[in-house]
């Protein structure tokens, strides 16, 4: 399991720049974004559409890279890594939970959870043991043989969470994890994330529009026009 929270910055962005080109026009998203998140923190990022939340999450996930500045997670300098190195980093250091679960439909729940473990040198028996353990952890014990199409949204998101944590990454990134769920299912998912942060020490960065989801985090950052406007700490 990961280490408990400390004050040392685990995620550090210094003067990060990012922009897009629409035709010939350059559209800046971040001109000099700074952010530090200590290990074991649970940060919710809120903001209106187009504020740069998803772009920030994509950069933290290493699936997009900054145009300038420094982006460090743990000891990894993501801004200096090539695509291959970032793939390897994602496989070992980060788990991601998507809004629409993004499970592969032709695989069972257990096989979906097993996917990240295929990137590790583990025997099939060890992989199966880990999958069973995390499915148990997210409350889906005995449901591993079911296909995603036969599961509710809440259950699919639990499978998504299990897939994100099965390789025991220190960092969990969540992109609107309750955005497609009813209130009850959303509550269950948020409770799960809180458990992963409080009990297992995962550092969680969650992008959300939902104030209720944000209230589960230790800190909430409001992002607008490429800048953090305010920070609210949980009581």
């Amino acid at each position, binding site marked *: 399991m990961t280490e408990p929270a400390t004050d040392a910055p685990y995620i550090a962005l210094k003067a990060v720049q990012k922009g897009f080109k629409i035709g010939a026009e350059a559209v800046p998203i971040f001109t000099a974004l700074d952010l530090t998140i200590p290990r074991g923190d649970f940060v919710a990022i809120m903001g209106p559409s187009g504020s740069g939340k998803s772009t920030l999450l994509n950069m933290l*996930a290493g*699936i997009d890279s900054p145009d300038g500045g420094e982006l460090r997670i743990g000891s990894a300098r993501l801004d200096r890594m090539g*695509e291959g190195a970032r*793939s390897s980093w994602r496989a070992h250091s980060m788990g991601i939970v998507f809004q629409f679960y993004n499970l592969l439909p032709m695989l069972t729940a257990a096989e979906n959870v097993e996917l*990240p473990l295929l990137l590790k040198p583990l025997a099939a028996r060890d992989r199966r043991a880990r999958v069973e353990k995390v499915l148990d952890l997210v409350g889906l014990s005995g449901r591993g043989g079911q296909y995603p199409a036969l599961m509710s949204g809440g259950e699919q998101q639990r499978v998504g969470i299990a*897939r994100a944590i099965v390789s025991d990454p220190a960092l969990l990134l969540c992109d609107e994890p309750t955005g497609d769920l009813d209130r009850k299912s959303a509550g269950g998912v948020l409770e799960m994330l809180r458990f992963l942060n409080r009990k297992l020490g995962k550092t969680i960065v969650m992008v959300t529009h939902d104030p209720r989801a944000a209230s589960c985090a230790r800190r909430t950052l409001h992002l607008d026009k490429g800048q953090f406007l305010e920070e609210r700490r949980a009581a």
Partner: protein
Amino acid sequence: MGYLGLARRNAWRKPLRTALLMVCVAIAFLIYGLTASFQHGSQGAAGASEDLLGVMSAAGRGQSLPMAYLPRLEAAPGVAAVAWMARLRGFAGAESNVIAVSAADPERLAAVNGPELGLAPGLMAALTGARDRVLVGHALAEAQGWAPGQRITVTAFDTPTAAGSRDWQFEIAGIFEGAGPSTDTYFVIARYDYVNALRARGSDSVDAFVVRPQEGVSSGELARSIDALFANSAAPTRTQTEKQFLEAFLRQFADVGLIINLVVGADFVTLLMIVINTLVLAVRERRFEIGVLKTLGFSKRRILALVLAETLFIFAVGGGIGLALAKGATLLAGASLGLVLAPLILGKAIALIVSLGAVSGLIPAISAIRSPVITALRTR
């Protein structure tokens, strides 16, 4: 589920499409298996010997050579043994049921051609028991339903007996099997002394001498020296290996090898176009999922391997089915077609399965790895 299991599951996500692709591959390899089996079989030249030499008249296949050439051939340097044969072509029952009879001296034939034809001492002893006895090849006996002890009549097309009849009576003394499955056994071996004594014309002539070179003697050089020996005689010779002879014979009708290569080539090019096109579409449909896999940490190399494994799986199953069907067809077709699916053909087919699978998978695989993760995730 292992890595290959993931590739297999990807392939089977649209079972009908995958099954149809496999059928395409299976048909392509069925065609390949059958054409290559024909080329390699007893109707083709692949099973013919490259050592045995046939000495025939340079004037053409229909012209005979005098028996008087025998002592000069036997005395030629590099010759280990010489046999001879006279051809008698005819039919049994219906005219379309063509039978080839090779009349030879039993002892000589056993010395020169015995190992290739599988002429065991017991068979040769049976043949020498009476002058009208013959040995029938396994393929021909199976096709005609003939058995040892049976009397048969071959009606010759152009070799009448001295009595004016075209019917030749023989008694089957035994069945010869041939050295291997690709040996031509679709003919009858008769005794030369019987045929020579009874035929109305062409007495003491042969259609060909069969020469076995001594150990270490080049068959090509020996062929040239034999032809030089008779270059200025009344009947110059043309000496070829058995394989060259058969290839030249088959080319009289058409260049079978070229036709087969063109058919198989067109077959595989069509197959490649169908499979590549389908797989490119299949991978494009899955761009989003490939984006998810990349987000989970699957590198470009792993995605490439995944798509290639999927195409190889389709080719392995389809190709395996095609080759199994080809094998079944060669067995069902019986000996008359002389199809032989030899291990060499299977080895080539497996190499083709792997290389075509890799080539077919490469274009969709490259398309899959080129798509940036962010773009792929937006394609939902």
